[in-house]
């Protein structure tokens, strides 16, 4: 009895020294086994791309069986059109094997349609061959796949088993998580910049024979995808056209852009544009002059969308006639930019 115990001890120690986990424990005859899914959230539809290398291969009439855990469920009507098989070449699949065509059938194994069996007709997979099997909408050969497999309802590590050619077997783990997605968000606040420079311009003494002009500038920029509008108008008791405060005015040109005609009483402006996406608006967008005081506040410039800084140059023009009353004439226009958010 003492001798038997000594032998038993030696054998146990020997087994301890060599029983180191080997890969073959998880994949007997299969190597490079993996499953690339599209989703790993519980109860969520997912595609699968299962890849492995088979030591023995598959003979004519042989099978490849992939079994998902019992809480995975194939969608109703999932069939061979939802499967692609590649082994050196893309293999033709159908509901049943026929010569070179492989049969692909989903069956029940503990749950509904969670087992895929591929059955060869005369086709084979060579020993040492790599096989890629796609299941779901990623199966695009022939009729495109439109059915997938729903992940387990419970979370944790799930084991998929593979049997290849009746000889090679293997398992792989897929993680089913409470959530496999991260939602990120951020806000870009609305932005609208606007400024008028050269706020005071002086024409000096107006002439009967020569055009008198002077310019002011304004800038605008926005990150609104609907852009902005700039209006020209007056504020309070300000006057829209040149006025001497004694009841005399220099006539505003009006809504129709008109060329400058020295000797004719005219007051108007035109707008030039540089940079950004902004543009002058009719009637101020031509080489001629206008001042549609009847339409005040009148849109004189705008941007249709996001725009870096646009510089607008407003060229004011004044002409007088022989019967224009003497005096000091002034006008004041108020520009307002409005973002369209």
């Amino acid at each position, binding site marked *: 009895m003492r001798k038997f115990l000594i032998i038993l001890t030696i054998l146990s120690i020997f087994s301890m020294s060599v*029983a180191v*986990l080997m890969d073959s424990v998880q994949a007997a005859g299969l190597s490079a086994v993996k499953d690339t899914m599209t989703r790993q959230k519980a109860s969520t539809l997912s595609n699968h791309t299962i890849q492995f290398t088979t030591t023995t291969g598959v003979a004519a009439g042989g099978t490849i069986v992939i079994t998902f855990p019992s809480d995975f469920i194939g969608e109703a009507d999932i069939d061979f059109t939802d499967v692609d098989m590649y082994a050196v070449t893309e293999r033709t699949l159908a509901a049943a094997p026929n010569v070179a065509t492989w049969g692909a059938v989903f069956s029940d194994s503990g749950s509904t349609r969670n087992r895929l069996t591929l059955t060869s007709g005369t086709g084979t997979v060579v020993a040492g061959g790599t096989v890629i099997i796609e299941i779901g909408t990623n199966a695009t050969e022939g009729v495109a796949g439109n059915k997938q497999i729903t992940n387990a309802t419970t979370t944790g590590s799930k084991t998929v088993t593979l049997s290849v050619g009746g000889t090679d077997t293997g398992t792989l783990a897929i993680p089913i998580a409470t959530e496999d997605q991260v939602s990120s968000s951020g806000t870009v606040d609305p932005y609208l910049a606007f400024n008028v420079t050269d706020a005071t311009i002086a024409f000096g003494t107006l002439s009967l024979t020569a055009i008198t002009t002077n310019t002011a500038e304004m800038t605008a920029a926005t990150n609104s995808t609907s852009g902005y509008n700039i209006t020209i108008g007056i504020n309070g008791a300000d006057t829209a056209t040149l006025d001497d405060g004694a009841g005399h005015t220099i006539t505003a040109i009006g809504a129709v852009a008109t060329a400058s005609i020295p000797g004719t009483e005219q007051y108007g402006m035109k707008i030039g544009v540089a940079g950004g996406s902004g543009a002058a608006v009719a009637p101020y967008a031509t080489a001629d002059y206008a001042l549609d005081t009847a339409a005040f506040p009148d849109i004189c410039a705008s941007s249709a969308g996001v725009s870096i800084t646009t510089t607008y140059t407003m060229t004011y023009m004044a002409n007088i006639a022989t019967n224009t009353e003497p005096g000091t004439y002034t006008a004041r226009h108020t520009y307002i930019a409005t973002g369209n958010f």
Partner: protein
Amino acid sequence: MDSATYTVPNDVLNSSGQYSSSATYKLWDNLGEFVTGESSSATYKNQQGFLQNDIPYLSMSILPTTVNLGTLSTLSVSTGNTVITISSNSLQGFALKAYDNTSAGIANGLVDGVKKVADATTPGVYIANPAAGTEHYGITVTGTHAAAGYVGGTKINSLDDTTWVDIGSHSTFVTGDAFTVQYRASINSISSASANYSATTTFIVIGNY
């Protein structure tokens, strides 16, 4: 021990043990081995005893699952983190990958259904983290086994909606391997359109067997 059809390379003679089963479980057990159990180092795992757990294991958790970058600024880079934790008993390890979902017809990235904050880079191409004031959106990853291209979080990548982008990987078993994914975004002075933007990133882990 062997037969005509199989070989058990390293069998053992013990004092007891049996195969048991019922309608809902199967059990193989033995009794009498002197030294059993599992030990491991950074590079090796030793499972002692004749009967071993041959069930592959792979788990993934993500927390948090929402990242709010707040109001994006031209003066700073907005950041937000999520941590992905993976455990695996595969001796070949795992690969962690990600992609951005298509949203309202826009392929990927931080979008509002019509507009998007510009990708930091071509998806899959690592570049140094852009400075504040440069419109960009992307991720960087840190962790012991983060993909090397991120260079400890100093480089950024953008995600694709058709091709998985590598986040990290490990070549052997591991418990609680953490990857910190940092979302980064900034905007240009005025060319970044005003809107509320969002993105959805899907992560998967692939065990290697």
